[in-house]
């Protein structure tokens, strides 16, 4: 089922502080962002429920990364509001972890993999005695169990990105914001990491907000895909991805439904790009 209206489902008025299974975790109401006279985002309405995997796509300049940064608390909106658990998002929170696109620049090069993960634990005030075990556990989860003592410069792009994810997971966040995390990686690595990410979000129950320019990736990963128009960034398309889970790189991508969704999304983007 395809909805092309501006909102997937309306945000409940006066969202209750205590969440129920259906109350959205992240709410965005009529959000707008203006920088130096340019309207980057306008009239964004979204509601993201707990455990959902939402992907955002759009032509370059549509503000998808900016939207992510607003949700990360790195930039307050100039209009409207973004709410987390009903409370306005005005500053970063450790419950919302962000994974940046440029992994090399987001890791501390002078710290080993283990020490980089430790950074998150340090800021959380995680008990010192338990840190080593927790770090080991997290690195194992992302498949970096053998690389604890390596420096980022000794690790491949895929490994560095996994390290960033491990650090994000260390915060035990409810929400994972990912900004084109696999964009700079080769196809094989990308596919492996896509499946790992699906596994991780499933096992931790984290909500994911995933920005990408790879349309097939968005469909493969997401429960919903939101398409943005550019200049100003506004929602143009919301696709419900009714593909079976768990997803498989070969089988899922060959399903007729996948191809239908793909067609729909591609047409939207083509239209959005020429606008």
């Amino acid at each position, binding site marked *: 089922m395809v909805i092309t209206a501006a909102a997937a489902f309306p945000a409940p008025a006066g969202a209750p502080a205590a969440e129920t299974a259906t109350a959205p975790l992240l709410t965005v109401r009529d959000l707008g962002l203006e920088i130096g006279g340019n309207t980057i985002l306008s009239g964004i309405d979204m509601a993201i429920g707990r455990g959902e995997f939402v992907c955002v796509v759009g032509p370059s300049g549509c503000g998808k990364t900016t939207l992510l940064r607003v949700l*990360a608390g790195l930039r307050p909106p100039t209009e409207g509001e973004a709410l987390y658990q009903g409370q306005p998002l005005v500053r970063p929170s*450790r419950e919302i972890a*962000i994974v940046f696109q440029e992994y090399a*620049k*987001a890791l501390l*090069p002078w*710290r080993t993999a283990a020490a980089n993960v430790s950074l998150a634990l340090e800021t959380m005030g995680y008990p010192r005695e338990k840190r080593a075990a927790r770090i080991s556990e997290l690195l194992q989860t992302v498949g970096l169990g053998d690389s604890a003592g390596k420096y980022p410069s000794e690790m491949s792009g895929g490994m560095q990105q996994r390290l960033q994810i491990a650090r994000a997971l260390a915060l035990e966040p409810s929400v994972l914001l990912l900004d084109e995390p696999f964009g700079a990686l080769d196809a094989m690595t990308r596919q492996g990491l896509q499946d790992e990410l699906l596994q991780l979000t499933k096992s931790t129950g984290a909500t994911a907000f995933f920005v990408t320019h790879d349309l097939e990736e968005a469909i493969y990963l997401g429960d919903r895909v939101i398409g943005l128009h550019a200049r100003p960034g506004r929602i143009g398309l919301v696709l419900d991805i009714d593909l079976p889970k768990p997803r498989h790189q070969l089988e899922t991508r060959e399903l007729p439904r996948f191809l239908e969704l793909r067609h729909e999304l591609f047409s939207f983007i083509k239209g959005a790009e020429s606008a």
Partner: protein
Amino acid sequence: MILQRLLWLAASTAVFAALVVIWHLVVENGLINRVFLPTPVSTWEALYAGILHGSLLGAWGETVRRMIYGWLFASLLGVVLGALIGMSAQARAYMSGILEFIRPLPASAVVPVAIVLLGLTEYMVLAVIAFGAVWPTLLATVHGFASVEPRLYEVGQSLRMSRWDVVRKISLPNSVPDILSGMRISVTVALILTVVGEMLTGRPGLGSAIISSARMFQAPQLFAGVILLGITGYVSSILLNLAEARLLRWRS
């Protein structure tokens, strides 16, 4: 590979030895006056005698002591001040005038000013060394702080790190390569200013030792002192290389 390296090293040393022999022959046969250029043998003898029986070892110790005190103090001060300035873009803008003016100034140019203020004293020498050696480290620290990858600040923000934690865990470690290269320059400046200070004040040290050797036309003793100063420079360089290798292991 290692063998090749060792062979070249041996050949290079042989070349050096050959040059020393040529040096010897040139002086022995009067091609260059013994007054200006002592023979290798007499230089070695002066070095040996000076260290074992004479005052050269003591003088060396004085020079090294002054240099290290001045340099360590200056480095610490430079890092602290550099961090304070570097942390804030505002501070950097306001300090830019002073820093850009002092940067190209010869460190030794403050010596006459220091003499005017503090006289020809030990205190003046130490003050000059510290003043001269502060700037390379300070400027390097400011640069290190100013060039932190903005993404890392955002990581700090999203992890809700305190200002102090950001300085301690991000800005400062990021600046270590810069600080080390600043300290490298600082130690060179410190050595130079130590020697200059000793030459001008006549206080005990290699600087005054070689000046008086020159005045008394004692070329072997003069060259012996120069060699010791060269060794001092060499050893500090090696030690800093080792520190750098240790601290910058994480670089590819």
